[in-house]
C-alpha cells in the first residue's frame, strides 16, 4: 500500500520534472536507471555478478542506431529490435557463462563483452572511434515528433515505467521466488527439483534484454551510439550504481544511477573537472565501508528497525 503511494508520487514528480530540469539530462538519467535496474535483476536477485553488461547496453545502442538510420525502421521498432538483439546476445553469452559461479562467471562475461567490444571497434557500421552519428529520433506512434525534447522525454518515461514495472513484477513472481531461492542456496534449490541453470539463464536473458532496451533508448535520445557504452568501464559503472543505490532492492539501482549521473554531470562542469572519477571512487569506498546495503537498503533497514 505504502509503496503504491510512493510510486504514484514518483511518477507525478517525473511528469513535472522536465519543466524544472533540463529534459535531456533527465532522459540520460532514466536510461541509466533502467540499465541499473536490469542489471540488478541478475546481480541482486540472481546473485550473479556479470561484468559484461556493457555489451548488451552498447550493443543494442548500435543495433537500434543502425536500424533507425540505415533501415529507416520506426523508432519504437528500432528500439525493440535493439533490445531483442541484446536478449539474443544474452542467450549466447549466458549459455557459456551460467555454468560457472562467482569470479569465473564474472570473468567469462567480461571476456565475452570484450570480444563484442572489439568487434564494434573494427566494424564499419559502428563508425569506429567516431561512433554511429546522426541517428534520427523519428516519430512516436508515427505522428509525435520526437525532435522536440519534451515529447522525447515523455516517450522515454513511458518506456522506463513499463520496463520498470515488468522488472518489479519479475522479482515478485513465481519465477522471482525460485530465483531468490537459487541465490540464497543453489544446492538446496537443486535438491527441490529445480534445474537451476535454466532459471539463471532466463534471468540473465531478461536482464540483457532490458539493458539493451536502455541502450537503444539512449541512442535515440542522443542520436548517437558510441564505443563508450560498450566499453568495460560501463560494465563497472553499472555495478557501482547498483551497489550504491541498494543491491536487491527494487528502486535502489535507479537511485544509484541518479546519484552517479548527477555527480558526473554537475561535478564535471565545476572546479573538480577531471577529478570526477576520483570523487566517485571515494564515494564508492565510503559506501562499501559505511553503508553496505546502499542508500535504499540502509533506508529500508532503518525504517524496519524504527517502526
Amino acid at each position, binding site marked *: 500500500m505504502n509503496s503504491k503511494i510512493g510510486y504514484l508520487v514518483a511518477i507525478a514528480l517525473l511528469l513535472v520534472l522536465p519543466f524544472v530540469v533540463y529534459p535531456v539530462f533527465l532522459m540520460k538519467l532514466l536510461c541509466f536507471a533502467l540499465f541499473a535496474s536490469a542489471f540488478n535483476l541478475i546481480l541482486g536477485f540472481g546473485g550473479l555478478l556479470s561484468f559484461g553488461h556493457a555489451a548488451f547496453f552498447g550493443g543494442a545502442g548500435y543495433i537500434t542506431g543502425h536500424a533507425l538510420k540505415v533501415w529507416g525502421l520506426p523508432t519504437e521498432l528500432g528500439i525493440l529490435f535493439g533490445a531483442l538483439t541484446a536478449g539474443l546476445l544474452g542467450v549466447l553469452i549466458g549459455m557459456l557463462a551460467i555454468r560457472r559461479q562467482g569470479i569465473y562467471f564474472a570473468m567469462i562475461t567480461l571476456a565475452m563483452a570484450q570480444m563484442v567490444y572489439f568487434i564494434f571497434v573494427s566494424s564499419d557500421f559502428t563508425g569506429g572511434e567516431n561512433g554511429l552519428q546522426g541517428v534520427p529520433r523519428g516519430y512516436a506512434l508515427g505522428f509525435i515528433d520526437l525532435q522536440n525534447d519534451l515529447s522525447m522525454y515523455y516517450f522515454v518515461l513511458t518506456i522506463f515505467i513499463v520496463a520498470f514495472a515488468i522488472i518489479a513484477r519479475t522479482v515478485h513472481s513465481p*519465477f522471482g521466488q525460485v530465483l531468490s531461492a537459487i541465490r540464497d*542456496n543453489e544446492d538446496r*534449490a*537443486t535438491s*527441490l527439483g*529445480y*534445474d537451476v541453470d535454466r532459471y539463471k539463464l532466463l534471468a540473465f536473458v531478461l536482464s540483457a534484454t532490458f539493458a539493451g532496451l536502455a541502450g537503444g533508448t539512449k541512442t535515440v535520445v542522443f542520436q548517437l551510439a558510441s564505443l563508450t557504452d560498450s566499453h568495460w568501464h560501463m560494465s563497472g559503472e553499472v555495478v557501482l550504481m547498483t551497489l550504491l543505490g541498494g543491491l536487491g532492492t527494487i528502486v535502489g539501482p535507479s537511485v544509484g544511477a541518479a546519484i552517479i549521473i548527477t555527480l558526473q554531470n554537475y561535478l564535471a562542469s565545476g572546479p573538480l573537472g577531471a577529478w570526477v572519477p576520483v570523487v566517485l571512487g571515494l564515494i564508492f569506498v565510503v559506501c562499501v565501508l559505511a553503508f553496505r546495503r546502499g542508500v535504499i537498503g540502509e533506508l529500508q533497514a532503518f525504517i524496519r528497525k524504527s517502526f
Partner: protein
Amino acid sequence: MSDAAPYILETQGLTKEFKGFTAVDTVDLKVRRHQIHALIGPNGAGKTTVFNLLTKFLIPTRGKISFNGQDITKTKSADISRKGVVRSFQISAVFPQMTARENVRVALQRKLGTSFHFWRPLSSLNQLNERADELLDMVGLNKFADSVVGDMAYGRKRALEIATTLAMEPELMLLDEPTQGMGREDVDLVTQLIKKVSADRTILMVEHNLGVVSTLCDTVTVLQRGAVLTEGDYDTVSADPRVKEAYMGKAA
C-alpha cells in the same frame, strides 16, 4: 508400481575415486521400504559422499544405483528429486532471505508449473499458503511463518528444512546429520519429528548421535574407509567388536 519390491533403493558396487583416493569403495547398499535406515561410521568414512553420489551432486566412478527398480545412475540431481528422492544437507539448508512460509512454498510451487512465469503476480502462489502452513504447523513453526529465516535459531532452521523436504512428498528422504550441532532439547525435538514423518516413507540418514540411531533406526550400516564394515539392527551392530575398533581404535 513396484511397491511390492522390498527394497526402495539399491546400489551395486558404488565407487567414487578422487585422483587415486577411493572415497567410496564398492558399496552395496539396500534400503528396505518404510524403514529408517542409518548410515554411520567414523569421520571420513564416506557417508556424505555416498549421499552426494545417490543424489548426483557427485558422479559415481563405477557402480549402479536403482530406485524402485529403476536405474537412476545417470539421472541428474534435479530429476532425482522429482522422482521422489529428496535430500537434506549437513549444514542447515534454508533460504535465509526468505520467510519460513516462502521457504516451504518454493518446494510446493514447482507442481503448479508456473515457476518460469515471470509475468505472473506473487499472489498466484497464495493458493499454496494453506498447505505450507500445515507443514510449518507439523514441525512446530506455525508462529514463525512470516519471519525471515536468516535470523532464526539453528534448531528451528533444521525443523524448517524438514518441513521443506516434506513439501516435496518424497518417497525416500535422505537426511544428512539432522541433529548435528544441536543442544539436547533440539535433538529430542528433531528425533520426535523424524519419527513422526517416517510414517509411509523411507528414510536414509547419516547420523553421529548413536542415541538417536538407537531410538529411531531399524537398520544400521557401518561404513569405514569408504567400504561397508557391517550391517544389521542397532544391537547387533553395536555389539560387533569391529565397530568399536573402527570408532575407538584397537583396544590397547
